[in-house]
């Protein structure tokens, strides 16, 4: 399955002991097993607080945010070869969020993860994005593709919401989470077309035929990132589909890893080599 060509998964999660799952170590090990089989050189991971065990996944308490970030840091330290990490923040607690980013950068975080604690275009996200810009960190934002109503336990945002935030922070690269992760991807692509600092990732359990074609034809290969999120078999399926839809080798390399290498701080992925 793996031919040694660089491959980066910029949207991955690891579980922690406080997630309340007895099998959290098994799930983390399964991600690494599948990643190695597919040739994933780097998993850029976040730990989402306590995954709902102590506070809601998408509205994590400051205490759980800190705990999850500490666990992500430790996991990255323990597997420096394969793991990089996002610092998670809850923008409802501004000072805490900014302190987490500062501490995260000091501990090697390479990006900021925004969940669904506020709508993407909420002003509370502005100081977070401003600090991300200072540190040249991309922001991975959880997205519901085309929100047509509210959903419980999330303050959902869609591509149009994220585009408004991105327009206010043109120095920040925003990774739009899981184009295949629920909702209507066909709405997202035109919603972000005119916002060049929004980069959809292809992760999610959805494997609709046509999604890859539309995203690449509309946005171009320089704005799309391959990724897995919660389902790695769909990631492998999309990787194989990308190989048969007519991308050039350059375009394929962009989607597999070069776009990620451009968005994250320099030197984040040394095993991928330099971008030529």
């Amino acid at each position, binding site marked *: 399955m793996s031919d040694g060509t660089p491959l980066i998964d910029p949207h991955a999660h690891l579980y922690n002991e406080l997630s309340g799952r007895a099998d959290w170590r098994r*799930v983390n090990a399964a991600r690494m097993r599948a990643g190695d*089989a597919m040739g994933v050189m780097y998993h850029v991971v976040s730990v989402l607080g306590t995954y709902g065990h102590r506070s809601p996944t998408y509205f994590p308490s400051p205490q759980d945010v800190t705990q999850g970030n500490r666990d992500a840091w430790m996991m990255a330290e323990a597997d420096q070869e394969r793991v990089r990490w996002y610092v998670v923040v809850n923008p409802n607690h501004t000072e805490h969020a900014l302190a987490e980013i500062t501490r995260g950068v000091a501990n090697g975080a390479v990006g900021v993860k925004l969940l669904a604690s506020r709508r993407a275009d909420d002003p509370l996200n502005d100081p977070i994005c401003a600090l991300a810009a200072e540190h040249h960190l991309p922001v991975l934002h959880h997205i519901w*593709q*085309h929100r047509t109503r509210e959903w419980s336990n999330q303050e959902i945002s869609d591509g149009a919401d994220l585009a408004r935030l991105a327009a206010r922070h043109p120095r920040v690269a925003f990774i739009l989470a899981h184009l295949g992760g*629920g*909702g209507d991807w066909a709405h997202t692509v035109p919603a972000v077309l005119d916002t060049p600092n929004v980069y959809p990732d292809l992760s999610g359990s*959805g494997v609709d*035929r046509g999604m890859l074609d539309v995203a690449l034809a509309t946005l171009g290969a320089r704005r799309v990132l391959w990724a897995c999120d*919660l389902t790695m078999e769909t990631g492998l399926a*999309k990787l194989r589909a990308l190989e048969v839809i007519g991308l050039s080798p350059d375009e394929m390399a962009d989607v597999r890893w070069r776009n990620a290498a451009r968005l994250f701080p320099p030197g984040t992925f040394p095993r991928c080599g330099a971008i030529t």
Partner: protein
Amino acid sequence: MIDCAAYIGSYPFRQLPHPDPDVLVRVLAREGLGGAWVGWLPAPWQRDPLPGNDALFAALEPHRATLHPAPVVRPDWPRWEQTLRDVIARGARAIRAYPMHWGMGPHDPSMRRLALACGEAGIPLLLTVRFEDARQRSPLDVAGDLTGPHLRALARAGDRVHLVVTGAGRELLEETHWGLTPDEQRRIHWDFAWIWGPPEDHFAHLLRTVGAERFVYGTHWPLRLTQNPRANLDLLPAELRNPPIVDAATYAP
């Protein structure tokens, strides 16, 4: 190995890239599949299934060595028994039914009669749990996913019933399988196109608990990427590689 869950034709809620039989033949060859049971994708949203069946047979005619018709029999429609005999005589390999789209509850007597009639004829009854993720459905697409009570009721209908269920996730599969006797469990085969692989490893879990012999291969082309079930197989833990799933081609009546 054949694909038990392919379609041709248009989908009412979004444009699909070239959902045509000649393209399907090329895709199957690319994926190393020997053939497919093929349904008429517009059928669930059409009241009278007969014109769709005729269109399906006509479209597949040049490709019958590879593409095998899976027409619809609607058991609350006049003369459905005759329709069943006719489509079997014309070479149907499986019978498709859409109880959710026809507003039929779990204990609908006509669906029970259809399951029994298909069983007597030695042809599988092919049931589709879903066409799309619920989170992206059109407000007009209100049928809902096929339910466990539907499946358990049909599996219990008689010992010759044979169901092939496509598009189930782990929860539906488990609530059905473990709600049946061992004899009844053997009346259902499942595809694994919508079952999660790693890191959750639902597919690996089900191979261990339910058994590989309960699974068949289905892609849901042209709705979904054909590469997905193969990817699921390829990412299994080492001890589960190459599971002895069943080739639906062996069900030929």
